[in-house]
């Protein structure tokens, strides 16, 4: 096992264990999806109209949950110091940390998303698309969210601050994914929304680690 795969395994395992891991994240997601009909009312037409969008927004919020510990623990216990003392560039290390985060929380959320949407009243044929959106969107959420998590290292109230930093950055992926789902639900061409979401995810995977590494170096110095 090489150094990089060892890191990926460790990060995935840590993200899996972090604060209850996917169980808590998916539980939060299920909780939001349960509260929505309670607040909006049980009429099927009304719920069906908002189901894809509600499932999608809840997903963005749920992926925020475990983000704030992504770098914070390593920062507090000194592991981040040691991660920099390696021939592996810190950018690549940050990339693998986010990838582990995505594997441990993004992928379980993507499995839960179609269930939540259908439970809220979306048509079952929406399921593959919301799964694809959740996978791609999860990637974008993990990699832009990682920037917020790295920037709030060493700040007071790190968790809340991460959310404040990250939510404006979540606007494009939320719009693109929501647009694709909405278009599909109303029988319009939906592929452009999915393509834009994929492009945004690719960009955040490319740029996110640069910003995260810079933020980590700054926090350690």
């Amino acid at each position, binding site marked *: 096992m090489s150094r990089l795969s060892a890191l990926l395994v*460790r990060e995935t395992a840590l993200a899996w264990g972090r604060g209850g891991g996917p169980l808590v994240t998916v539980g939060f997601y299920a909780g939001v999806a349960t509260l929505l009909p309670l607040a909006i009312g049980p009429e099927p037409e009304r719920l069906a109209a908002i189901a894809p969008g509600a499932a999608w927004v809840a997903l963005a919020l749920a992926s925020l949950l475990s983000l704030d510990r992504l770098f914070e623990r390593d920062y507090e216990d000194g592991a981040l110091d040691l991660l920099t003392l390696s021939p592996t560039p810190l950018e690549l290390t940050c990339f693998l940390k986010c990838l582990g985060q995505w594997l441990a929380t993004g992928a379980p959320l993507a499995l839960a998303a179609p269930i939540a949407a259908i439970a809220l009243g979306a048509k079952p044929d929406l399921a593959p698309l919301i799964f694809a959106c959740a996978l791609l969107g999860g990637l974008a959420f993990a990699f832009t969210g990682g920037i917020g998590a790295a920037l709030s290292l060493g700040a007071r109230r790190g968790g809340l601050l991460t959310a404040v930093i990250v939510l404006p950055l979540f606007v494009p992926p939320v719009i693109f994914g929501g647009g694709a789902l909405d278009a599909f639900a109303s029988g319009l061409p939906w592929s452009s929304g999915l393509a834009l979401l994929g492009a945004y995810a690719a960009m955040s995977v490319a740029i996110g680690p640069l910003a995260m590494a810079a933020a980590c170096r700054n926090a350690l110095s």
Partner: protein
Amino acid sequence: MRRRATLFKRLGDSVIEQLLLRGCAIRRGGRLLFEGVDLSLRRGEACALTGPNGSGKTSLLRAVAGLVRLEAGEVAFGDLDSAEARGEGLHFVGHADGLKSSRTAREELAFWTRWGGGTDGAVREAAEALDLVRLLDLEVRRLSAGQRRRLALSRLLAAPRALWLLDEPLSPLDARWREGFGVLMARHLESGGMILAAVHDPLPVAAKSLEIIG
């Protein structure tokens, strides 16, 4: 004892030949901690960094590791490029030991060995040298402070690197392990390693000393 001797043979070719600090100064939070710190450390030499609390011993160690930026001066690692030296040539053991309390000692030691470029065999040897074998299946949270420190120190042996940067390495250790780690340090020096350690008590090996005055 023969096994321990093999531990220290593996310093490869790409090792730091010399650590040189010239006119180092560090500023923290708008305050100049110290300036004009010079040091030369060759293979086989150790240096004890002393000075009152807050004088900047930890910051100096972190600056050598490239974590903290120097306000002035420079750190050189012989002929080695400093990125390569920091990536592959040195170990840093700080106050925070970098261990996750929810993982077992074995998982943590195996990961950090891998990360430092060591092999699986080295994990076992390092665990034996620091008498950690019985503890390897425990979660880190179950270890005492001294055991945790020994686990952190075992990284030094599991992935051989020439320069050890140690921040108060002895403080949580009992008398027996202070002596035991002293032996390991002496072996590291014998095999051509270098040690720069921030300490309050004298190092258990022959060392020069550098006092940081704020």
